[in-house]
């Protein structure tokens, strides 16, 4: 593995190299680089299209699965389908993510379509990190689509991070939440220069006791643009909370469109959205502790995106 590949791998998955142990599937430039499975977690390459099936046996506990994707060349437009089948009572962490390093003048992109089929009473945490670097003029595009069915009594926690370098991203997340199941989504996106990031959430709270909590934190600088769309549909006695906070600087733009649809009088749905420039009060407070204006801004944004 060369240094750039190692760097990307570390950024998106926290791995320093191909691990000696653990469950992983590392994809580089459209091909499988390394894989490891065990008796509880199986990873199988799809036959009909590009992608993998990840099958987790019921009652699998305290396992982490790393499935990073590395794009380290120009002119590659990768499309991949990953399906996750999580057995009942499983308790696992999945770390996905994609890093693009493109020094050429040809656009690179990665389109990952992830489907989660979550059994009953599972606990799944899914972390997705996106990041890109290289030739500033070349497009580095990421379009992740995530489909989730959160089974009865299960908790699915999704954390999305995009902290710079991605020229264009269009994220789509569709979820159906079953009886007494819970979906927690946290999205942190920072854009600068002319980057553009679009998010689209559509969550159906299908049965009684279902719950969704979405927290989206956006920081847009320079001439970048972010769009946040969310639709939460409550079809039964359920709870939904969507919070979208944005910090805007320079000539950037943030559009936030949270929508809630209640189809049951027992549905309790709330959305909050606030966009504004960095708080002067917060800046003043930190400056009164001795920080410069720029240092204060950095601390505020770091906390905001934590």
């Amino acid at each position, binding site marked *: 593995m060369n240094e750039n590949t190692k760097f990307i791998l570390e950024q998106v998955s926290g791995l320093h190299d191909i691990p000696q142990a653990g469950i992983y599937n590392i994809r580089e430039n459209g091909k499988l680089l390394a894989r490891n499975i065990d008796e509880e977690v199986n990873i199988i390459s799809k036959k009909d299209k590009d992608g993998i099936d990840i099958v987790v046996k019921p009652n699998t506990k305290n396992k982490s699965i790393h499935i990073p994707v590395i794009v380290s060349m120009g002119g590659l437009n990768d499309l991949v389908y990953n399906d996750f089948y999580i057995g009942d009572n499983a308790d696992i962490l999945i770390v996905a993510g994609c890093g693009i390093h493109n020094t050429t003048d040809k656009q690179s992109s990665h389109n990952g379509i992830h489907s989660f089929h979550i059994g009953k009473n599972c606990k799944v945490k899914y972390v997705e990190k996106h990041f890109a670097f290289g030739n500033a003029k070349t497009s580095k595009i990421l379009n992740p689509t995530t489909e989730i069915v959160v089974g009865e009594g299960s908790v699915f926690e999704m954390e999305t991070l995009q902290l710079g370098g991605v020229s264009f991203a269009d994220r789509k997340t569709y979820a159906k939440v079953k009886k007494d199941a819970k979906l927690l989504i946290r999205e942190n996106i920072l854009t600068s220069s002319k980057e553009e990031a679009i998010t689209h959430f559509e969550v159906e709270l299908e049965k009684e006791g279902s719950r969704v909590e979405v927290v989206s934190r956006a920081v847009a600088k320079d001439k970048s643009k972010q769009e946040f769309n969310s639709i939460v549909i409550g079809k039964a006695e359920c709870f939904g909370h969507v919070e979208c906070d944005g910090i805007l600087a320079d000539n950037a733009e943030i559009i936030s469109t949270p929508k809630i649809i209640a189809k049951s009088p027992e549905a309790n749905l709330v959305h909050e959205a606030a966009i504004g420039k960095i708080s002067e009060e*917060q800046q003043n407070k*930190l*400056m009164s*502790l001795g920080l410069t204006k720029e240092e204060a801004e950095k*601390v505020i944004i770091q*906390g905001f995106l*934590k």
Partner: protein
Amino acid sequence: MLEIKDVCYEVNDNGEKKVILDHISFSLEDDILAVITGQNGSGKSTLAKIIMGIIKPTSGKILYNGKDISKYDITKRAKLGFAFAFQQPVVFKGITVKQLLDLASGKENSVTEACHILSKVGLCARDYIEREVNNKLSGGELKRIELAMIIARDAKVNICDEPEAGIDLWSFDALVNLFKEKKGLDIIISHQNRIIDIADKIILLKAGKIEKIGAKEEVMPHIVNQRCERLKEGE
């Protein structure tokens, strides 16, 4: 020595000129405890913010140890040794109590050190160190954390805007002791007799002007007068 020289502050209130501070001058020696008091809206917080550099006065000068610091921004005043506790503590997102204490002391505090500071403001440290400084904390808790930052700063000039507000009576003695012990110049905005009691110098404001300045014996009758007038107005 901190000198406030002929400070005025005016704002444009819907096209009309509104005078908030009207030719304020006084000086404060190092190592004293000064209290600024006066009715709601008399200009206390505005004056405190002008001293810290948070608000720029319309005219007038501020001198510290003979040096004109009127043009210094907040950061520069902080580095010179000024600390400030807000009347309404500022809340953040994703920033913990420990982080703020570290920034205030300019170094990474050990857990023991951070606990020590928090215990001085009556907070059980282990419950608070990793908590975010956001609106989930109660008003009194936020005020205490604000004070904890003053302790952590260990500054030469401490400006505290109504530090006792929202703090329960049980902790009041501890708060009074805190200021008694503190080195440096303390400028405390307060309405409380028990804080006025320990002041070396009292500045009584009325509608943006200094009504009276001096030791407790000289100023107290004016404070009592003001309070009586207010009572009569209420009748």
